[in-house]
C-alpha cells in the first residue's frame, strides 16, 4: 500500500476503514437474516470485496452516480446509504429504500446517487452510460461508475455501450469486479482472452488493480474521476477481488467448484480490512484500540437497525398498484 500525506488524510482513511467495516457488518447481519428465514428471495454477499466499493465510492461525491449489481449491498453502503432503510428493504418493509418492492437485488439510494442494483447481469450498463451522456450534454461535471462482475463481461450490451462511450467521450468508468467466478464457474472458463484488452479495442484506457487494496483502488479512481471531469473519459478498471461467501447465501458446499485452500488463502492473506488495519496501525494513523472501538460501534448500529427493521411496518397490499406509472 502506498499513500502520501498520511497525517493530513487521517479522516479520509478512517472513513474508508469505517465504510469497509460497515459493509462487512451489514453483510454478516443480512446473512443471518436470510439463514433464519426472515428475508425472502435471493441474496448475494459482498463480503471480501469491500475495498472495491469503498475505494471507488470514496473517490466520488454525492452527485456522482453509480449503477450496481445483484451483489449490491456493498455499493449501496459505500455510496452513503443508511443501515435502517437498507435492512427495511431487505425485509420488505415500507420504510425500505424501495418500499419493500425491490429487495436485496434492487436496492438503491437516489439521494446518494446510487441508481440501483440490478438483477439482470449487465443490466445497468446502458443506464450508466446514459447517465454519463446526460452529464456531458448538460455540462454537469459528475461521473458515473458502472459496477459489474467478470461474468457480466459475457453480455453483448457492454460492447455496444463501450463503443458509444468511447465515440462520445463520456464520463463513465466501467468497473469490472473480477472475483474469479461467475456463479459456479471460474472466470477463465467464461471469458476468452483479456478483459481489459476488450476495452482497449475501443480505444478506452483500461487498468488492472488489486481490488483488495483500498488505497490503490482509491488513488486510481481519484485520478480517473478527475480526468473524466476534464472530458477525458471513458475508462475501464478491472479489479481483482474475491467473494468470501457462496454465489448466493444458499451456496454452502462449494468445494466442487472452488477449493477450500483458495478461500482460506484469500481470507487469511489478502483480506482488505485486515490489510488496511495493518497499514493504519503501522503508519501510526490509528491504534488497534481505536479501530476495535469503531467496529464495536458499527456492530451496535447494525444491531439496532436490524431490530428496527424487524419491527417496522409492511406496506399495504394496495401499494402493488402504485408506482407502475407516475400518478
Amino acid at each position, binding site marked *: 500500500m502506498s499513500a502520501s500525506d498520511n497525517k493530513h488524510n487521517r479522516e479520509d482513511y478512517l472513513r474508508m476503514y469505517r465504510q469497509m467495516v460497515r459493509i462487512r457488518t451489514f453483510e454478516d447481519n443480512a446473512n443471518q437474516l436470510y439463514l433464519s428465514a426472515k428475508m425472502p*428471495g435471493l441474496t448475494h454477499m459482498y463480503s471480501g470485496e469491500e475495498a472495491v466499493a469503498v475505494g471507488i465510492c470514496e473517490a466520488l461525491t454525492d452527485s456522482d452516480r453509480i449503477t450496481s449489481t445483484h451483489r449490491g449491498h456493498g455499493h449501496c453502503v459505500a455510496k452513503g446509504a443508511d443501515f435502517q432503510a437498507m435492512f427495511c428493504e431487505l425485509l420488505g418493509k415500507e420504510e425500505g429504500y424501495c418500499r419493500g418492492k425491490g429487495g436485496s437485488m434492487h436496492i438503491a439510494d437516489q439521494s446518494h446517487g446510487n441508481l440501483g442494483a440490478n438483477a439482470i447481469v449487465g443490466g445497468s450498463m446502458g443506464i450508466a452510460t446514459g447517465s454519463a451522456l446526460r452529464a456531458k450534454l448538460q455540462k454537469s461535471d459528475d461521473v458515473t461508475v458502472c459496477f459489474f462482475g467478470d461474468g457480466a463481461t459475457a453480455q453483448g450490451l457492454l460492447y455496444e455501450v463501450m463503443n458509444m462511450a468511447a465515440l462520445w467521450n463520456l464520463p463513465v468508468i466501467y468497473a469490472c469486479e473480477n472475483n474469479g467466478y461467475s456463479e459456479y464457474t471460474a472466470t477463465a472458463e467464461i*471469458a476468452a482472452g483479456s478483459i481489459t484488452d476488450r476495452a482497449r479495442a475501443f480505444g478506452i484506457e483500461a487498468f488492472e488493480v488489486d481490488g483488495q487494496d483500498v488505497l490503490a483502488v482509491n488513488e486510481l479512481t481519484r485520478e480517473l474521476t478527475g480526468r473524466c471531469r476534464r472530458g477525458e473519459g471513458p475508462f475501464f478498471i478491472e479489479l481483482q477481488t474475491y467473494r468470501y461467501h457462496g454465489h448466493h447465501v444458499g451456496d454452502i458446499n462449494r468445494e466442487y467448484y472452488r477449493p477450500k485452500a483458495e478461500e482460506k488463502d484469500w481470507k487469511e492473506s489478502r483480506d482488505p480490512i485486515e490489510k488496511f488495519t495493518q497499514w493504519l496501525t503501522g503508519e501510526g494513523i490509528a491504534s488497534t484500540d481505536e479501530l476495535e472501538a469503531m467496529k464495536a460501534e458499527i456492530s451496535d448500529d447494525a444491531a439496532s437497525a436490524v431490530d428496527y427493521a424487524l419491527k417496522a411496518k409492511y406496506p399495504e397490499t394496495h401499494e402493488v398498484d402504485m408506482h407502475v406509472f407516475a400518478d
Partner: protein
Amino acid sequence: MSAEKSPELRELSYAEAIREAMDIALGSDPRVILMGEDIGVYGGAFQVTGDLVHKYGTDRVMDTPISELGGAGVAVGAALTGLRPIFEFQFSDFAALAMEQIVNQAAKVRFMLGGAVSVPLVMRFPAGSGTGAAAQHSQSIEAWLGHVPGLKVVQPSTPEDAKGMLLAALDDPDPVMIFEHKILYKMKGHVPEGRYTTPIGKAAVRREGKDVSIVATSLMVHKALSAADQLASEGIDCDVIDLRTVRPMDRETVLASVRKTGRLICVYEGVKTLGVGAEVSAMVAESDAFDFLDAPIVRLGGSESPIPYNPELEKAVVPQVPDILEAARNIAKGQI
C-alpha cells in the same frame, strides 16, 4: 401416442421428469445437446440438468457464458444446420435478452426462406412468481412468445406432461418454447417409464364438472383443482381444463367444455391484459359456444404491475385460490 401407465405408479418430481426426458434424448439421439448457464457441474439453477454432464460430457451438456443473446443465436444456428439443442434459460425473464434471436430468427426463418429450412430448437424457461425473487426473476411471459407465429409455446403442469412434452418438442421440426413454473419443480407425480410423448396443442381435462369451466395454465391448474374441490362441497361442479399449450391453442376441448357448462373462468399467472385468458375468451366469444354462455366470462390473471419483492404483495399480484372461489361463486350465483 400416450404410453401405458405403469402399474406401480412410479413417482418423480417435475424436475426429475424433465431430466429423465433429457437423459432419454441424449442417450438415443446424438444430435441432441443441452446448452445453458451453469448446467454442467453445477447442474443448473434449479438442478434440472443435475448430473447429466457426468454421463454425457461437456460436448453434449454445455455451459455457456452469461450470454443469452449469443447462446440463443448459437442454438438457433446449430438447430438450423442439424443439431437438436435444448437451451435452458436460468429464469424465463432473461428471454428478454434473447428475443431477437428467438422472434426474428428462430420463429421466422422457415417462412422467410419459403420452407427451405427448419429450426428444431427447444428452449426451456423456468417461470413464474412465488420465490420472492422480485420483478426481474418472477415473470410469466408465455404470452409474449405466444404472440409469435412460428413458435409453439407449452406450459406443462405435471411431471408426466413435463417429460412427455419435452420429448414431443424434440420430435417437432419447429421451435418449441417450454415454460416450467419454478414452484412445480419439486412437485411429485406419476411419470411413466421410458419414452413417450404428450401431444403439443392438446389440452387435458383434469376434472369433469357440469357447472363452471375453469381453463387454467401451469401452476394455476393446481390452484383451480383445489378451488374446484372446495366448490364441489358447496354444490358447484367445475370442469377444470389444463390448457397445456398456449400456441397452438386447443380450441375444441375448451369450446366443448363451455358448451357443457355455460360458464367460463380463465386463470393464468401472466399479466391479465392481452394475456392467454384474453385469447381463450375471444376464442369462445367468436364461436358457437358463445350462445351457451349463461354468465359473462371471467379472467383471473396477473395484475397490472411488475412482481414485487415483499411476499404479501407478491401474492396479491397473481390469482390465488380464494380469487377462483369468489369468481366461481359469483358467476354461479342463484343459477345452480
